[in-house]
């Protein structure tokens, strides 16, 4: 129970809700943008469509969440890097297809557990969570199918899947750190996440990655506004049109 007490975010007053919505909304927005970068580059047409669809779901979730925190457009397009509260995991570049699938596997397993938990509660995120949990179930399904196919595939696909999982492993600890206003038990969520991940990896005939998942010198501070080097460039691309033409509309 000690673990529960230390990782369970204090059920905070209404003032914590906008900050919590910003953190969860930034996760969805940033990952949505990263997945959108696959448009025109995915290995097959079906994957192009799949990744864009997942990006669209995340964008919808981001719009609801950012609107709970303020003006969605201002928040998305006019904030500086240090004001974003997303996990460092979601800002990581796409890499090859297996790398993207590894990021999807880690994040969508987490997000599905998170929405499941929040949908069961009575908090401010319950209405969105009830909807998003069903969408995220398809994201999990997509990531799991590909992880198994690549992990238990050819020598080359196994090598790449392995490399993607290893490279992103150090960003996975941050997902379970408490966020004020998000009323979930981080430690319990982490245990379920590890169990589900183990199950997928064993089906893919892959060993779980080794090494620290948190506490590294830089990984795990996205929630405090400390981001990795590729994030600034991603933001520049995401924001430049809006910043270059203020107030423009279709």
């Amino acid at each position, binding site marked *: 129970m000690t673990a529960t007490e230390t990782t369970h975010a204090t059920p905070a007053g209404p003032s914590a809700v906008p900050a919590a919505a910003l953190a969860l909304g930034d996760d969805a927005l940033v990952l949505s943008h990263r997945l959108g970068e696959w448009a025109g580059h995915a290995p097959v047409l079906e994957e192009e469509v*799949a990744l*864009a669809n997942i990006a669209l779901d995340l964008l919808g979730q981001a719009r609801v969440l950012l609107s709970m925190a303020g003006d969605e457009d201002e928040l998305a397009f006019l904030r500086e890097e240090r004001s974003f509260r997303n996990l460092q995991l979601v800002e990581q570049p796409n890499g090859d297809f297996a790398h993207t699938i590894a990021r999807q596997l880690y994040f969508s397993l987490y997000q599905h557990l998170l929405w499941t938990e929040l949908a069961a509660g009575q908090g401010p995120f319950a209405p969105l969570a009830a909807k998003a949990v069903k969408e995220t179930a398809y994201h999990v399904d997509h990531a799991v199918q590909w992880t198994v196919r690549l992990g238990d595939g050819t020598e080359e696909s196994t090598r790449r899947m392995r490399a993607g999982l290893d490279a992103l492993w150090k960003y996975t600890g941050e997902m379970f750190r408490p966020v004020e206003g998000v009323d979930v038990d981080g430690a319990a969520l982490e245990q379920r996440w590890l169990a589900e991940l183990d199950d997928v990896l064993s089906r893919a005939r892959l060993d779980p990655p080794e090494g620290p998942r948190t506490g590294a010198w830089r990984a795990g501070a996205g929630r405090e506004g400390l981001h990795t080097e590729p994030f600034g460039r991603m933001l520049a691309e995401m924001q430049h049109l809006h910043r270059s033409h203020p107030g423009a509309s279709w």
Partner: protein
Amino acid sequence: MVTDAPVAQTRLEQELAALAGSVPDPEMPVLSLAELGVLRGVRMREDGGVDVDLTPTYTGCPAIEAMSADIERVLTDHGIPQVSVHTVLSPAWSTDDISAEGRRKLAEFGIAPPRPHASDGPVPVSLTVRCPHCGSTETELLSRFSSTACKALRRCTSCREPFDHFKEL
């Protein structure tokens, strides 16, 4: 699951709800918004304006804006001075909210209708999806995602035609 509260109360509201509900879905125009089950409420305001509650199929469904604009236009043409369409998330829309008539029209249009709900999210592929063209149950999944957020792409192994399947949500 959403029918515990009536969409409209007074006769005028019922009339306006029928009008709003008759608006075709922008992505699948064979379906009306009423058949899709996304219209949640129509209320007259004291100032003579009307509030309409609409729920998205998917959180990020881009069609919601076209739906709102179409509802506004239909009700404004009917003499309502001011129409406000609100997006409501709760209770979450489910494919079970599509009416029986809606399902029939989907199949007729070449889209396999969603199967009744099992649990949240994906349904085991062992439950068969019938080909909307030839009726065969021998169909296979090509991609979990298709032309819009709400559909998956399948192929009939009997008649070889690919088709969209309105996937369960």
